[in-house]
């Protein structure tokens, strides 16, 4: 905003090249103002790093059993050892290592489902909103019908019949969740396609895929990003619930939901088996939710206006108090 106006094309291009860096810096500055958002971003970054480098961080192989050290308590108990910092489960597997590796499954399923469901939903929504007519009617009918399905029950049955695995979990959750993106994209497209620049592109003779993907889609980035992050949080919880019910990730692999389900039987002897993976899920989802609510605040102009108004009201109140104080003091002596 504060950049000087550029006169030559070369200068404009030179500035344009660094625009993404500027906007990143701008984002960083916004983040400093919002403490919960900052905490969320830091947590997510460290979770992603933990998932990527899991084999190097985890002290043990998550599947390695050690029957001599079954149900060992965490290190702060008398019987705990530094070898197993967060204790071991009923097969003597290291809880810390399993929790670190569990992050991989959760984040992978979340990312994959958001990409599949989001991609499909956005394409459907774009087509429905831009092409209109029969396509629109058909896609919206489809979405309305599928939204009214008992989704989780169908997911459970399909998983049970096809056989649960990482891939089937991703497919089933994607099939279940693409409708939100479709609806949102369609309504946004309907309002954008009336704007002069889209009409100009049509007049110039752009074909509809180009208009959709080059001219309309970039304007949907920020609401779609917020929705995708919220959906990511929902998917992490859904994967955990499916694994907990025994219809998600299967035993040789590790998943937080699976670990809670296995720890359930030893809940009264070894509380850490249920508590630690459960906390991991909660912290992950909380971090994602914090980032999502921060993004929603900064990307929604109305919210920004409200925040600014609140801030200004505070400033004015302080000034008023200062003036009142000043007026009081000369009368006192």
């Amino acid at each position, binding site marked *: 905003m504060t950049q000087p106006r550029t006169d030559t094309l070369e200068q404009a291009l030179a500035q344009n090249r660094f625009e993404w860096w500027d906007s990143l810096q701008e984002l960083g500055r916004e983040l400093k103002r919002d403490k919960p958002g900052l905490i969320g971003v830091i947590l997510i970054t460290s979770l992603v790093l933990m998932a990527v480098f899991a084999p190097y961080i985890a002290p043990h192989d998550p599947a390695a059993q050690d029957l001599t050290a079954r149900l060992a308590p965490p290190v702060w108990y008398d019987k705990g050892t530094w070898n197993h910092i967060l204790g071991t489960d009923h097969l003597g597997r290291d809880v810390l290592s399993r929790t670190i590796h569990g992050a991989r499954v959760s984040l992978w399923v979340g990312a994959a489902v958001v990409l599949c469901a989001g991609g499909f939903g956005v394409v459907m929504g774009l087509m429905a909103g831009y092409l209109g007519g029969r396509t629109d009617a058909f896609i919206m009918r489809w979405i309305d019908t599928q939204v009214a399905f008992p989704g989780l029950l169908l997911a459970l049955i*399909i998983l049970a019949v096809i056989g649960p695995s990482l891939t089937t979990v991703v497919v089933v959750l994607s099939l279940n969740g693409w409708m939100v993106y479709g609806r949102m994209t369609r309504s946004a497209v309907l309002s954008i396609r009336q704007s002069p620049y889209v009409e100009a592109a049509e007049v110039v003779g752009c074909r509809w895929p180009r208009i959709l993907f080059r001219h309309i889609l970039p304007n949907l980035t920020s609401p779609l990003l917020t929705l995708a992050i919220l959906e990511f949080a929902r998917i992490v919880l859904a994967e955990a619930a499916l694994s907990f019910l025994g219809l998600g990730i299967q035993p040789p692999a590790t998943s937080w939901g699976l670990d809670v389900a296995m720890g359930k039987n030893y809940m*009264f002897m070894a509380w850490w088996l249920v508590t630690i993976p459960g906390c991991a899920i909660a912290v992950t989802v909380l971090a994602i939710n914090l980032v999502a609510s921060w993004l929603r605040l900064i990307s929604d102009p109305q919210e920004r206006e409200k925040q600014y108004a609140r801030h200004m009201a505070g400033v004015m109140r302080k000034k008023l108090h200062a003036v009142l104080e000043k007026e009081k003091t000369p009368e006192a002596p």
Partner: protein
Amino acid sequence: MGRFIYRRLVHGLIVILGVTVIVFVVTRMVGDPVQVMLPLESTPEQRAAFEQKLGLDRPIHIQFVEFMGNLVRLDFGESLWQKRPAMDIVFEKLPMTILLTAVGIGFACVMAIPLGIIAALRPGGWVDRVTVFGSLLGLSVPQFWLGLLFIVVFAVQFKILPTSGTGTPSHILLPALTMGLPTLARLVMLVRSSMIDELNRQYVKTSFAKGLPFLRVVGLHALRNAGLPIMTLVGWEVIRSLAGYSVVVETVFAWPGIGLTAIQAIEREDLILIQAIVFTAAVCVVLINIAMDFLYKLIDPRLKLT
């Protein structure tokens, strides 16, 4: 009006039909029911007899026509697991799920509306911040884990509430609380944001200026105008719960509702019971959706039903 009812009913029928066809196809085409339901050592003759009994030896389209014919009469056949009509089992379990949902979501509504309003009165104040953070936390905790935590704290540590099952009224407290908390979190956020918007409107300022009592302005005028999105969410939560999301809570607390029965039927590959349950869930969803549309009209008479 008549046109509206007609359209909604047709759409509802399409939904129910779609769901039943999907379940039919998935269970018949993908899996082999006989293989799953009979023990490994059974002879080919036994298998053939069993196939004949279920009608699985006939072509798939004939099976489908017969299935639809029975569907109209609400007759899914006998459950393979419990050896009695599947619809009887469903009608026995459904009230338990409805009870759990009613208590859980009722609790959420009773808590969420005052909490959300109090938070909305001073946006950015400490009550507001605590409420927002609390509901974010409530949104983030997995439901099954919350249930287990409640069992450990209230049933094992303090021994004041039963761990699971049914019987006395106190049995419903923990499952209902587990069911209601995520709903409460979502609802508080919504009540808060729509009340903040509503309290900034001009008519609220006018009402205060002309000296109407505080409770009347906030609790009657503003809340009623903020009511539409709140009701949508409540309806959506009820639908979610009846459409299978109660599975998790019911499994944790061994609550004998339709969700637990569904999971047990899936484990035992009881196709007939599964079909009956999914069909019932679809009917519930459709009915609640239609009821919600009428409630909208009741709250906001300006709405046109199309």
